[in-house]
């Protein structure tokens, strides 16, 4: 008997691929509307309009790219574009970017994301990496300087926290929240602060999660385990340094944890096939997120943690024997060992993080020495403004 392996979602599930993508699109539109409203009310209708225009630019580039690709590879254009769902990638990419990104940079990144992230691999369902994450990595790394417009000069919460090495005292945290305009954690939950376009409103994203799970578009395990692990591990790390409950809550609310956890981690093409695999995948991503936040040069670790775990998906599938589930107990044991190792490493990294009460530009040793005597470091801080 010939076994045909198809990447999920399969047609046995209550939702078809087009149904899932439709629901996803609705959610992304909802996030876009919220973001546009926020920017209009907080900064004027120029910026609100800009959000919409950026979305249009990205989607248009995506559709054009896929149409050209279909033409070149001699496929039927309309059908090819509609079943390739390029606009979903475009929308996620736009929502991950900062509002300062120029239209040109966004368009080029969308093209590169689709061509090199999805189309050369064989199109929808064949890619290894989440194309939106790939596009965002390109956007961040190469368009950072020249193609950014100076619309807003405020920092994002992740970037602000990064200047303290993602580990600081409660007092410094409150000062940072008020001085940078993030308000309270409650305000962050609703999402009324500037950051990447789509990842601000925790409330809205959680509603989207509920909707998508209810409509059986995604498995709840991946998102919940990702957000949960970030929360639990940062709680442990925070407690090791004597920080309160605000620390894990901030870790979850700031940056792309919620957005990535709901819209990118759950991509069935690039995550493992089994539920157990997806749990390991989610925990791994959470661990990497925290490690990158604490120790890397980037303000937020979500993007690259997702890309790294995408790369490990085949290994996870192999470890948990992918589509043939033979001995569940053995597989569960393997999964638990993997999770335990990753968690321990993360806690270890967190334990050696230094508490900083003064912002630094990446020189922890000297800051600890001169923290008291330096007025300059809290005044003229320039951070990065994307996540």
């Amino acid at each position: 008997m010939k076994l045909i392996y198809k990447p999920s979602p399969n047609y046995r599930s209550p939702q078809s691929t087009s149904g899932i993508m439709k629901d996803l699109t609705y959610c992304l539109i909802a996030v876009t509307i919220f973001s546009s409203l926020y920017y209009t009310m907080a900064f004027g209708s120029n910026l609100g309009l800009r959000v919409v225009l950026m979305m249009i630019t990205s989607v248009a580039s995506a559709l054009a790219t896929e149409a050209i690709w279909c033409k070149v590879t001699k496929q039927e254009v309309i059908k090819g574009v509609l079943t390739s769902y390029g606009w979903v990638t475009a929308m996620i990419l736009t929502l991950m970017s900062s509002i300062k990104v120029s239209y040109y940079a966004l368009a080029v990144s969308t093209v590169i994301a689709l061509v090199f992230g999805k189309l050369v691999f064989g199109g929808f369902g064949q890619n290894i990496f989440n194309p939106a994450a790939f596009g965002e990595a390109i956007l961040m790394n190469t368009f950072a300087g020249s193609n950014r417009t100076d619309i807003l000069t405020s920092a994002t919460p992740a970037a602000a926290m990064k200047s303290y090495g993602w580990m600081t005292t409660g007092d410094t945290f409150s000062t940072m929240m008020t001085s940078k305009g993030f308000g309270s954690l409650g305000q962050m939950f609703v999402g009324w602060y500037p950051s990447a376009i789509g990842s601000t409103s925790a409330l809205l994203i959680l509603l989207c999660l509920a909707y998508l799970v209810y409509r059986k578009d995604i498995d709840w395990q991946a998102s919940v385990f990702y957000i949960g692990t970030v929360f639990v591990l940062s709680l442990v790390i925070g407690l090791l340094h004597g920080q309160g409950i605000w620390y894990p809550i901030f870790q979850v609310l700031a940056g792309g944890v919620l957005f990535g956890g709901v819209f990118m981690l759950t991509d069935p093409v690039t995550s493992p096939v089994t539920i157990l695999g997806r749990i390991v995948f989610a925990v791994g991503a959470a661990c990497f997120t925290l490690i990158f936040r604490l120790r890397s040069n980037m303000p937020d670790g979500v993007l690259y943690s997702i890309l790294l775990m995408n790369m490990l998906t085949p290994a996870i599938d192999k470890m948990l024997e992918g589509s043939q589930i033979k001995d569940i107990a053995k597989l569960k044991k393997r999964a638990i060992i993997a999770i335990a190792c990753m968690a321990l490493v993360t806690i270890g990294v967190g334990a050696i993080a230094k508490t900083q009460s003064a912002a630094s530009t990446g020189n922890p040793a000297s800051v600890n020495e001169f923290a008291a005597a330096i007025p300059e470091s809290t005044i003229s801080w320039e951070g990065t403004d994307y996540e």
Partner: protein
Amino acid sequence: MNKQSTIYKVLLLGVLCAFCGLLLSGVNGLTAPIIEEAAIQKEKANLVLIYPDAEFKEVKDYDDPTGLITGIYTAEGLGTVYKIHNVGYNSNGFTFLLAFNNDGTVGGFQVLEHGETDGFGSRCFDEEYVSSVESLTTSDSAPLLSGATLTSTAIKQGYDAAKALFTAK
């Protein structure tokens, strides 16, 4: 001679290496002075800020445990110039020249490029601080400047490194 014998192999390799060695040393003799001249030319634009009209020679071998010294140039009959790179506030660091006259007094203190904060760390490169450094000798140390702690500490560390090398000569 038998090609497979060890003597033949040794001889072949030996002759080959000797020939190549001669060729290399010949070309080296031709090109080395040009390369050295070019290197000094590049630095000269900066070095004349301290000792105008001097003949500079680069010192290649020096033992600097701090790693802050990126170049040493001697000015015939005048003194020695040290090119120092250290990190103050801006993580990219800054580069400056510090010269000791042959009699042990400071011959010059000149910043080449820096990204220190305007109004804070940059005060270390203003007239007041610069002249205070230029009045020092090898028995002193560069002073710290309040409000520019990181930058002046970096200068102090560089000063001490140069001093160590200068007095060790």
